[in-house]
């Protein structure tokens, strides 16, 4: 659905679920995934419906992902780094008692 307007000049590899994705260093994670044809970023907490980025500017919270083990990260505001591990945000975040920081 989405096509890059500029070629990748400084490539890094990130991992989405079990897939390798080549992305431009420093671009938003959401942009990298959309360019790689990923259309479902998360499922909603109440109805489990599939969701994808809407605003791309940090307002809508539709693009939430688990990034390097951290839940509910906004994919449009996180920048791609080499070796980043990204998973779908499935439903609501679980919070453990020992998460206490």
């Amino acid at each position, binding site marked *: 659905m989405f096509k890059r307007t500029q070629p990748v000049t400084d490539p890094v590899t990130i991992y989405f679920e079990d897939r390798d994705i080549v992305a431009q260093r420093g671009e938003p994670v959401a942009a990298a995934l959309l360019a790689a044809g990923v259309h479902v970023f998360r499922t909603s*907490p*109440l109805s489990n419906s599939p969701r994808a980025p809407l605003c791309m500017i940090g307002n809508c*919270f539709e693009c939430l992902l688990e990034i390097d083990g951290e839940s*509910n990260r906004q994919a449009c505001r996180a920048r791609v780094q080499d070796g980043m591990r990204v998973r779908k945000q499935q439903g*609501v*975040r*679980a*919070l453990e*008692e020992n*998460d*206490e*920081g």
Partner: protein
Amino acid sequence: MKDYDVAVVGGGLLGSSFGYGLSARGARTLVLDEGDNAIRTALGNFGLVWVQGKGLGMPEYAQWSLKASAEWSGFADRLRQETGIDTCFHRPGGFNLCLDDDELATNLELLSSLRREAGDGGYDYEVIDAAELKRLIPIVGDLAGGTYCPHDGHCNPLLLLRALHAGFSANGGEYRPRSHVNQVKSCSDGGFLLLSKNGDALGAAHKVVIAAGHGSPDLGRQVGLDITTHPDQGQVLVTERVQPMLEYPTNYVRQTDDGTFLLGPSTRDVGFDLSTESGTLRDIARRCTRAFPLLKNLRVQRSWAALRIMTPDGFPTYQQSDTHPGAFSFSCHSGVTLAANHALLTPDWILSGSIPREYDVFHPKRFDVQKNAAGH
């Protein structure tokens, strides 16, 4: 012949409750509302349906809140059946959390004063010590304790507003946004005419209900209604969504059905200022994370400010004009809690043309020092 039996000025929680209740009784009702630029207290609510701690100095207000809490379940069911909108109302009882012994002592003094004042009409509460609190709410931090009141609950105030609007429309009510009323005029043949700033007629009705929040004082004075209010700013933080962990609403933290935590609300006198500010937000976050240390791990998604409609003593003011019978005004800050009463009970007052004597206590003549002194 006027087009409407009643015109309600204001489409917030009060105006929408009256509109819904009046139209449900078959009254031809018009609600005139402003546009998106209005100061909308109804969009900034914390969502508590709260009784605990209310009414010191006016036991009738405590009773009125208690009555609303009792009506709320049926009210929420009715809105759901009529509109399909679930207002997420739950009433598991609420906790007033006390961080330290001083807070606990102050709170207990307040509740026992209320009990003394109210006599048999007082509401139930229990003192909960730190260990019991931890058992009932495993995620609380080390607090001094708290009090529990079984009449307290919470709801989603945005869905409440939406349900009232939907119910009003389904009842045949007429809602007109972007209709900022600037003048209220009584007509020579009875009834009232509502005009915009430019003098355009916005509607005419046999009766008028002024429920325009911070806009009420200017409108009321045109028809002999003396309304005094001031804004009291509250700021709220909302976190990301997480699994359900907190069933009970508390005095400053609650978890919504969506999984978000609401933290707040502050109270500040800053005039008509709707901006949030980091010092206040930091204080809210500090207090709430002391009560629930787990919240430190949550991302804050948004914050906002809203302006409560405060009367001089914080209690509701309800009145009908002596000089212009048929003109009513209602002002209060507890638009969520009292929504059930405003929708189910007050429409009869408006339609019958008189506020029952037992509610005289809510008349703002209580602020008239000269008159009160002369009476003694």
